[in-house]
């Protein structure tokens, strides 16, 4: 253990991977030194674990109806109680984590790279490329997220995929703007001039030099935005436009439980708490990441 620690804090790395390992270890230590960040990270890890293991850890089926067991309050048998059809809320929340994770991952892997690429290309090349790409960005920025989602659902029918598509289409323009602004400052730096003087192509400079510097602020931004994405997805579910029954989705669960809120508080409150906790987790993690990754602070 101590040997590993010495290896990870060495001043003179002996290979490329060693250097990377040291960097990763130092970033991890900086991240772990903030307790709130660790809480955020634990929440996000819990979301991933619960989502992946839902079929094995959920005590009951999330969709099996049992009308004899309706509205049982949280207790020893049903930890989170049951809903109006006698379904186990704990199992539904666990399966609901899968839907949430699915949305979050899909938005992150589509919107962030598109925004990063559009922003860096526009910023690095400037001129016509910049004008065209940024006007396209402006057009997408003008779409109201929820209304666009409603339009998509109206055109393509309700479903998670359409909700994700609507969220992703409206999520990338802010990333493009951030990436472009950062690229503009990076572009004029001497290390870019130096690599240009080596005869490097635009592609090489953007992918090898500009993107790595922009991507850390992008990660921070995406993490912070995830709370918003989860809330939008939940909102769509609440309106009945996201995941369709019997698939368990937190927003939809809140929506259906709302009718019984006064008599059976847990039906709507527990999925609501799940949304709250996961959003908070992403926000805490994002704040911590910003402190560690922001190139301006180091």
């Amino acid at each position: 253990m101590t040997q590993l620690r010495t290896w990870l804090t060495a001043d003179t790395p002996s290979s490329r991977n060693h250097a990377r390992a040291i960097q990763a270890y130092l970033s991890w230590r900086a991240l772990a030194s903030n307790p709130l960040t660790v809480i955020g990270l634990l929440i996000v890890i819990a979301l991933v674990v619960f989502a992946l293991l839902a079929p094995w850890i959920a005590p009951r089926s999330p969709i099996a109806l049992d009308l004899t067991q309706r509205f049982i309050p949280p207790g020893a048998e049903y930890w989170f109680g049951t809903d109006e059809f006698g379904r186990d809320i704990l199992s539904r929340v666990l399966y609901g984590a899968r839907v949430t994770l699915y949305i979050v991952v899909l938005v992150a892997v589509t919107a962030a790279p598109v925004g990063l690429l559009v922003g860096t290309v526009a910023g690095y090349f400037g001129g016509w490329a910049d004008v065209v790409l940024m006007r396209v960005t402006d057009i997408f920025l003008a779409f109201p997220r929820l209304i666009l989602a409603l339009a998509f659902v109206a055109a393509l029918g309700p479903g998670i995929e359409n909700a994700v598509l609507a969220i992703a289409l409206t999520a990338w323009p802010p990333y493009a703007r951030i990436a472009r602004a950062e690229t503009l400052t990076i572009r004029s730096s001497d290390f870019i001039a130096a690599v240009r003087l080596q005869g490097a192509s635009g592609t090489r400079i953007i992918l090898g030099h500009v993107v790595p510097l922009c991507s850390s602020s992008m990660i921070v931004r995406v993490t912070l935005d995830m709370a918003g994405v989860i809330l939008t997805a939940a909102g769509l579910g609440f309106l009945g436009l996201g995941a369709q029954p019997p698939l368990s989705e937190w927003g939809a669960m809140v929506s259906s439980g709302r009718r019984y809120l006064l008599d059976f508080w847990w039906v709507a409150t527990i999925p609501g708490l799940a949304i709250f906790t996961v959003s908070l987790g992403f926000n805490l993690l994002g704040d911590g990441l910003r402190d560690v990754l922001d190139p301006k602070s180091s």
Partner: protein
Amino acid sequence: MIEVENLTVTFGEGASAIRAVRGASFRVEQGETFGLVGESGSGKSTVLRALSGLNPDWTGAMKVDGQVLGQKRSKAFHKLVQMVFQDPYGSLHPRHTVDHVLAEPLAIHGMGDVDRRVETALAEVGLGPSFRFRYPHQLSGGQRQRVAIARALVLEPKVLLLDEPTSSLDVSVQAEILNLLQRLKRERGLTFMLVTHNLAVVAHMCDRLAVMNAGRIVEEMSVDELRRGAARHAYTLQLLNASLGYDRSKARELVTFE
């Protein structure tokens, strides 16, 4: 080695256009160190950036090693001419290791034998193999500047453009870097073009120099003439006097040249 004929660099267009360099001409012989001296805004760095290909908005004629230069430069040109920048903190990518910095030009030009070349380049600038996998933030200013010099030399160029290479370093580190540059020049038969505001550095490094003011070359002289104070243009004389240290009576006589 370098021939520049009537070089004019203009920034902007129309009424707001600024002519940063106005009709500069000079020649640098093979194996020579040529200094370009002036104060901020004189256009000395702009000449260097136009020559290196970083600034395409120029008119005139430039030749390096017999080849006529266009606005766009070929890969062969970059192998021939390399540059060292002023700020050692800004000229290295903060997320790239020294190894990455030195291996990249080799990858761009498809040169093999990367490990050996990187290690040789490091050894030549006086950095041991222990520096190879460090990040810039683990290096001092002088060490960074050594890495920047190694990066410029790894492509084995014939011409090195030096843009104030020591002006952000401490004097003791400056001496080390200047000695290093002199040794590399001797060993490799390099041609240097040095841009600086520091006349003492020019006197130490150069064979000949040109003095620039407001975009024009006002005087070209040998370094012997500089040492004797044999300047013909009043601006050069004033610059020389101001560089010799503070003198109350001289400070009164300063004039602005246009």
